[in-house]
């Protein structure tokens, strides 16, 4: 199936809701769970999930429920997860990826990492400043105003599902500090709007998706270094002084993690 057809499979609102739910989970999702999340019948969910699989947007795996093995454990359940395949449609045709690869190669060859990081930091800073409340950050009113996707940089992850469930007005770790709560929510919303798919872990935020994945796989130190600088700048621009960005790569995730300074040793 080509990219246009794959993306067209998301036109159906129910199917889209199912896709967004599965994509946002940190585990493989069964039919019953997906049906409940989308508020539809299990058989209907199964139909749409399989359509999404046919379109190449979801992958399926068969697995027995946790803790049940051996004979008599029952049939393995069909589980769904987001496909790693990227789908892009551009009309008229554009090829920014080829350009990005070439430019990355140039930066690596001339040793321009420092310049790249400086520019990325500046870019992150202005994006953060633009996404911020643009007024006294102490007001804490941005929980209603600047939701996910409200920033000018609303990226591919700015769908209604991402970040919305998490509630942008809560800080990671949910500390008692009212200021920290507002800032943490703003950071989470800004990250969600840029497609990072943030989720809480401990007192910090981890990022499930790398918006620069293909380039990051080809030029890891270069692109991950740029990404770190970009996020440092973003925190700066958002005036999130209580948070720091650092590298902590894990297989299958973004290379950067954001810590709350107050709670982190």
């Amino acid at each position: 199936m080509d990219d246009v057809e794959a993306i067209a499979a998301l036109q159906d609102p129910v199917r889209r809701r199912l896709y967004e739910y599965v994509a946002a989970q940190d585990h493989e999702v069964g039919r019953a769970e997906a049906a409940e999340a989308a508020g539809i019948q299990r058989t209907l969910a199964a139909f749409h999930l399989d359509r999404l699989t046919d379109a190449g947007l979801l992958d399926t795996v068969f697995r027995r429920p946790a803790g049940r093995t051996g004979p008599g454990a029952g049939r393995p359940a069909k589980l769904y997860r987001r496909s790693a395949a990227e789908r892009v449609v551009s009309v008229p045709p554009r090829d920014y990826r080829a350009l990005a690869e070439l430019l990355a190669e140039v930066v690596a060859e001339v040793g321009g990492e420092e310049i790249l990081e400086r520019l990325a930091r500046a870019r992150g800073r202005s994006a953060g400043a633009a996404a911020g409340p643009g007024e006294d950050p102490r007001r804490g009113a941005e929980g209603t105003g600047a939701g996910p996707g409200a920033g000018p940089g609303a990226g591919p992850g700015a769908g209604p599902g991402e970040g919305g469930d998490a509630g942008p007005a809560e800080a990671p770790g949910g500390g008692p500090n009212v200021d920290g709560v507002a800032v943490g929510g703003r950071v989470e919303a800004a990250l969600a709007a840029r497609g990072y798919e943030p989720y809480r872990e401990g007192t910090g935020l981890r990022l499930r998706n790398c918006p620069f994945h293909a380039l990051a796989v080809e030029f890891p130190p270069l692109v991950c270094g740029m990404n770190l600088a970009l996020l440092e700048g973003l925190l700066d621009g958002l005036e999130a002084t209580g948070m720091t960005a650092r590298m902590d790569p894990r297989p299958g995730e973004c290379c950067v993690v954001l810590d709350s300074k107050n709670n982190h040793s």
Partner: protein
Amino acid sequence: MTDHHLAEFNVARLREPLDAPSMAEFLALFEPINALADSAPGFVWRLADGAADDATGIRPYGDDVIINMSVWESREALWDFVYRSAHLDLLRRRREWLLRMAEPETVMWWVPAGRIPSVEEARERLGRVRRDGPGPEAFTFREVYDAGGELVRS
């Protein structure tokens, strides 16, 4: 594939001698990063000379060039250690301590499982990738070959 392991060899030109104050932070990273490698999934072996438990004492390219060599069960195992662990941050910061080299600094090749490659062999492979570019006998992460000699399409 499982009857072959992936050997990796790389060289690095030091900005200053390892005992210089400016290199202290770099030097301090050796132990934790080596320990990380040793416990990484798919790790098989790494070059070390006795007392220091690292390869910094082996300098076949001259006093200012240190070398590194290791063997892994698969390309994915090596990739996850190099780019998806704390090792990535060291790579990101490498220019603080290491000079750029005009020629390729890294080479990989397949060895029969159980055989440990020699430094001599590693130098020959690096020489090959520098001279002829990547091929089935000596390649890089940008252009990987499988143990059967086929180019891996990512």
